[in-house]
């Protein structure tokens, strides 16, 4: 039976991560950073990866990891979502780890330990990848991949080609920063011109599919974290903000909207936990769980962020208030690893509801 609760260990992990983020990734710090030359916080990343050891949670201890599971990874993602923290966790600890876990490549050690930041060179929007934009001639790679997450700070890029998945040194590639819609998750266009790669797996298709599925399953936990922050923050705000000499949260229309949002967030938690557990346990229902996770949690996070802005009134629409960062993250996540609509289309095939 799938366990949809949080274990004590998971709750302890959450507390450590939350405490670190509260210290180091407060809103003012994040806001200042995103328009700075270093939008990603590598010091914070090292604290997470090295001090807390969360960079490779599902990797066996022998492989440099923490010997935990994807369930714990999902808890970290909830907290990173709550803080919209600009660290290369999604690229490194979800995509790269998932891609490398199936191989016996020694690179996994460093990636899981957080000492070499890696990411998978696919467009962040990809739910599946059927064609390759990089070609391999022997070990020389040519081509461009757009909108790659965490590629700006990665040392190693995992590049899929028809001939297999290759590891390349990031500094050998041309990296052009993208003006990302989500400022806390910078994207990079990567161009390879005759770059030398090292073959990691001949089965790029299978590896990428596995990584993107892990991404879809786990992103739901980040979306849950975003939604929870938005709900909690809004509830607190409407308790204190007064208009017409009454707390805004005493107006029934507001109360009912927040109640409905709470119901949605409650559902999102069950759905996200289910996906994380299926991924952690290798449950055969994983394809359904991952598609369901994105089909459900993605719009919930957007809705929560939209309600957060609206119910804060004018202040929620300013740059100086955190709400916009969550709105941008939620909206950006809605186009990450495939849209909710594309995941519904995937489900149609999986659960025999053909068009």
């Amino acid at each position, binding site marked *: 039976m*799938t*366990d*949809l*609760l949080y274990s004590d260990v998971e709750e302890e992990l959450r507390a450590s991560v939350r405490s670190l983020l509260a210290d180091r990734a407060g809103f003012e710090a994040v806001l200042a950073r995103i328009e700075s030359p270093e939008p990603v916080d590598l010091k914070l990343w090292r604290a997470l990866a090295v001090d807390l050891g969360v960079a490779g949670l599902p990797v066996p201890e022998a492989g440099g990891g923490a010997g935990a599971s994807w369930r714990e990874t999902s808890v970290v993602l909830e907290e990173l979502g709550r803080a919209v923290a600009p660290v290369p966790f999604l690229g490194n600890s979800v995509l790269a780890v998932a891609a490398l876990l199936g191989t016996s490549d020694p690179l996994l050690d460093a990636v899981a330990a957080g000492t070499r930041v890696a990411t998978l060179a696919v467009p962040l929007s990809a739910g599946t990848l059927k064609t390759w934009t990089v070609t391999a001639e022997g070990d020389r790679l040519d081509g461009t991949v757009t909108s790659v997450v965490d590629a700006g700070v990665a040392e190693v890029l995992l590049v899929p080609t028809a001939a297999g998945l290759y590891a390349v040194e990031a500094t050998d590639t041309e990296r052009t920063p993208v003006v990302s819609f989500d400022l806390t998750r910078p994207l990079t266009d990567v161009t390879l011109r005759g770059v030398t790669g090292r073959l990691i797996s001949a089965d790029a298709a299978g590896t990428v599919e596995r990584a993107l599925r892990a991404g879809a399953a786990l992103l739901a936990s980040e979306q849950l974290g975003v939604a929870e922050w938005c709900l909690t923050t809004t*509830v607190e705000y*409407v*308790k204190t903000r007064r208009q017409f000499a*009454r*707390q805004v*949260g*005493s107006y*029934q229309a*507001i*109360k*009912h909207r*927040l*109640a*409905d949002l*709470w*119901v949605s967030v*409650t*559902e*999102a*938690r*069950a*759905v996200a*936990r*289910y996906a994380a557990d299926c991924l952690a346990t290798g449950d055969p229902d994983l394809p359904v769980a991952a598609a*369901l996770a994105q*089909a*459900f949690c993605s719009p919930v996070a957007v809705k929560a962020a939209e309600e957060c802005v609206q119910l804060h009134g004018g202040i929620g629409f300013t740059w100086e208030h955190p709400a916009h960062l969550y709105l941008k993250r939620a909206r950006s996540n809605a186009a990450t690893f495939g849209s909710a*609509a594309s995941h*519904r*289309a995937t*489900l*149609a095939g999986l*659960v*025999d*509801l*053909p*068009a």
Partner: protein
Amino acid sequence: MTSAGLTRDFLAAHDPHALAPLDFLRARFDAGLAWVQYPEGLGGLGLPREEQSAVDEAFTAAGAPDNNPRRIGIGLGMAAPTILRHGTDEQRHRWLRPLWTGEEVWCQLFSEPGAGSDLAGLATRAIRDDDGTGWVVDGQKVWTSMAHEARWAILIARTDPSVPKHQGITYFVLDMTAPGVEVRPLRQATGEAEFNEVFLTGVRIPDTDRLGAVGEGWAVAQTTLMNERVAIGGGASPREGGVIGVVTDVWRKRPELRTPALHDALLRLWVEAEAARLTGTRLRQQMAVGQPGPEGSAAKLLFARLNQEISALELDLLGEEGLRHDEWTMRRPTVVDFAGRTAGYRYLRAKGNSIEGGTSEILRNIVAERVLGLPPEHRLDKDLAWKDLPK
């Protein structure tokens, strides 16, 4: 001995195929295997509630007769826990055994035409009779399922109109065969009459059938209502259990009805239904480890909305067939058969889901105030005497 061992022994000693069903059920009750979490002597063994499902499964596997739990749902789900918690020993012993065996059906006389969401605003009066040994009740109750089959009713009535409304209510058990009890079917939009109106005219209730203290009826009723909401939201179901399974079945079997717009609409509802199902699963896991979360209210809200949206989609899918119905005859079903009728029936019946057992509006208030801690509605009726309230 464990409940598993006791069950084994009981089944060894009592052949379910040899004994008359009622005798078998009485024996099972007396053995404490009816509801193991109840005290010994009252059908239980004082064991954790979680052990019950294994017991039930063993009885089912042995081909034992059951007590037709859907027919006596109000007794099992609402009357019994209230009697157990608030009844005297004598009351417990008198009522619980025939309730559980199904010999006596129970109904609930709470709602009134003027007191729906605002149940505590009820106007049914109970006045002490002249010799002080009982009460005389006058009023009208509504939305009473099973009243026409019930032997007993749980009843709340106003015993003191001169105090604020929550303070002047008392909780009774009413003999439905008493003179002055009149049951009339209440026909619904579906054409059926699942429910009844119950008119009480000078009905006498002995004071020994009062549950809890005089004026404490509202607190007693909370036990009943809490158990009602758990019952409505509850129940594990497999993927595509419930109404979603009906419409996916139509979709799979009848490709000629499919359109691209309906396809995405169906998938949206499939996703919603599966999310609601997992939410229910998580709720039960929380309860099993003793963290009763507030997800129960969420479950009821979702159940109502999904039944409504899914049955509407089914009508969209059916086109011309949705214009045609099976029958409008006034019937008196004892259980709601969602799957056995037309899509139109499901559509209409589901409209009741967001009204019965607490409207969706009241549930949202509960979530907003009790879960999120938002300020309560402005109320005039907490301090004023009931008789002085605007009606």
